[in-house]
């Protein structure tokens, strides 16, 4: 498979993806400042930006001929990214930055292992695995922030910070009361209830699907990236449905509507781009024989 030369260079995508992901995650802090949880969807936008960047990284890496398929790159990205994200959320307001640092070091070590100990000897391996680990961590952090309204460890393990009084019972992760010394219950939270595993795998498949699905001689960068956005917003829909539990009906519905609209737009664009690139766009027509043996 050859790497197609796209209009956007990989470094441009990396810069945009990284900045939007970090800014988006920090924007969820508006929840705390304003006191309502509707700003959680910024976390989803952050995650989609990371996936958008990561799909180009996978294309970059897999064009060197890994010997295994594309899906394994997505698995290793999120296997290491999940670890970096969980540890990174411990650092309070600096969590996104620390997550990136931890993920970069982790990805570098794994990349070095793959390149020099397993002897894969691919020139971009270490850099790509660093990027993939960061992408995995940022995607999970973004979706976790979207789901619970916060990116800090203490909020991810006891449920949301929804401040709407009437839904304090369900939304606050099972705690008896709100903002009073209560006995927190950990089993109903995003991490305690293992809903993080859903985010883990949503991201793992959304990361590798764009390049895997558009694989072929006529792969074009804009179509692959549009599919990346589409997969990202599709995953955002699933996360938004789960966020209804942690954020209450209003914020959860806002999440669902935003993800749905964004996904519809991206998916329609993807279909248009496929129509543009396809050899022919036929409806109920027979096989066009081109002369292979039968």
């Amino acid at each position, binding site marked *: 498979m050859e790497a197609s030369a796209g209009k956007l260079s990989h470094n441009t995508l990396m810069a945009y993806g990284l900045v939007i992901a970090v800014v988006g995650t920090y924007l969820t802090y508006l929840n705390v400042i304003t006191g309502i949880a509707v700003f959680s969807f910024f976390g989803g936008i952050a995650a989609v930006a990371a996936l958008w960047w990561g799909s180009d990284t996978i294309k970059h890496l897999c064009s060197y001929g890994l010997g295994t398929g594309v899906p394994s790159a997505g698995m290793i990205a999120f*296997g290491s990214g999940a670890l970096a994200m969980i540890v990174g959320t*411990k650092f309070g307001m600096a969590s996104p930055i620390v997550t990136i640092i931890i993920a970069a070091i982790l990805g570098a070590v794994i990349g070095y292992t793959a390149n020099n100990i397993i002897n894969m*000897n691919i*020139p971009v391996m270490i850099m790509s695995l660093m990027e993939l680990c960061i992408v995995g961590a940022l995607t999970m952090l973004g979706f976790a922030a979207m789901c619970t309204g916060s990116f800090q460890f203490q909020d991810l393990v006891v449920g949301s910070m929804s401040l709407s009084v009437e839904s304090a019972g369900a939304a606050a992760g099972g705690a008896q009361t709100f903002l009073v010394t209560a006995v927190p219950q950990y089993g109903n939270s995003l991490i305690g209830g293992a809903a993080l595993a859903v985010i883990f795998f949503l991201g793992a498949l959304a990361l590798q699907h764009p390049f895997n699905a558009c694989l072929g001689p006529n792969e074009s960068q804009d179509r692959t990236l549009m599919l990346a956005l589409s997969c990202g917003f599709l995953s955002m829909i699933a996360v938004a449905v789960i966020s209804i539990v942690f954020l209450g009906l209003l914020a959860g519905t806002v999440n669902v509507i935003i993800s749905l609209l964004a996904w519809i737009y991206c998916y329609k664009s993807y279909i248009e781009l496929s129509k543009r690139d396809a050899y022919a766009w036929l409806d109920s027509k027979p096989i066009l024989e081109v002369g292979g043996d039968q």
Partner: protein
Amino acid sequence: MSALGGAAAGGDGINPTGAIVGIVIILVSLGATMMLSASLVFPLIGIIIGGALIGFGVHFVPVGGAPAAMGQAPGIATGVAMLAAGAGLAGLFGGAWAYASPEGTFLTAIVGGAVGGGLMMAITCLMVNATYVFAMGIPAASGKVAKDPITGDTFPEYKSQGTEGHGLPFISFVGGVIGGTIAGLGGTLIYIEILDVYNTGLTTLLQAQGEAIQPLAISLAGILAIGFFLVNAVLAAYNITGTIEGPHDPKFKRVPRAVIGCAVASAFCGFIALLLVVNIGM
């Protein structure tokens, strides 16, 4: 087989520089953990052993890839990493259950996990052979050896024309079961080490009661165990480069560097995982 001009992947041997740097990384991880808290060193050693076992076990599983789906190559027609993950996670399911039961001890849990993984691979390999023999009418034959090392069956005359073999010869079946067992063992070992550390660590970190923390620690340990599993299995899959017939395959000689690689990756990942309960940040 690199498409864009990268250097060809090394042969089957160990890269000395890489191995030495790897061992340095393992020692640094152990040393840093020792400095943070001496009680965390043994769990980290357990995690390193678990990761190395996963890397080792994945090499036993017979995977034929796309040609196996057409009866052109022996092995199971699925991807290496995910087939091993399926077996290892089924083992983890059993091991975690054994550990949570009142009679559960460390030993019964990891051996239970191993047996769970082996049982899943045994049933899967059995059904694969049933498909080949009863539904497709194709007897099992290996393409890499002329005689089965265990049963002595000869293969060249049972290989259909134009193919590299097909089905699961007995050595591949045994390899699959052993692979599932070892992978399940490694995965459950990692899970239990992380669970024990988090049970005590999170109780202190979050100032909460032991029983309340239990579901949180279990979920965290489960998610992280799956993450560790995927990283190690994919590294082993990179080592195998796609397909392997089982322990009799010449590619099996590549095992040492995979074991070292998985140990290095698990050491550093384990160090990061243990940072969660150490008193920095929060």
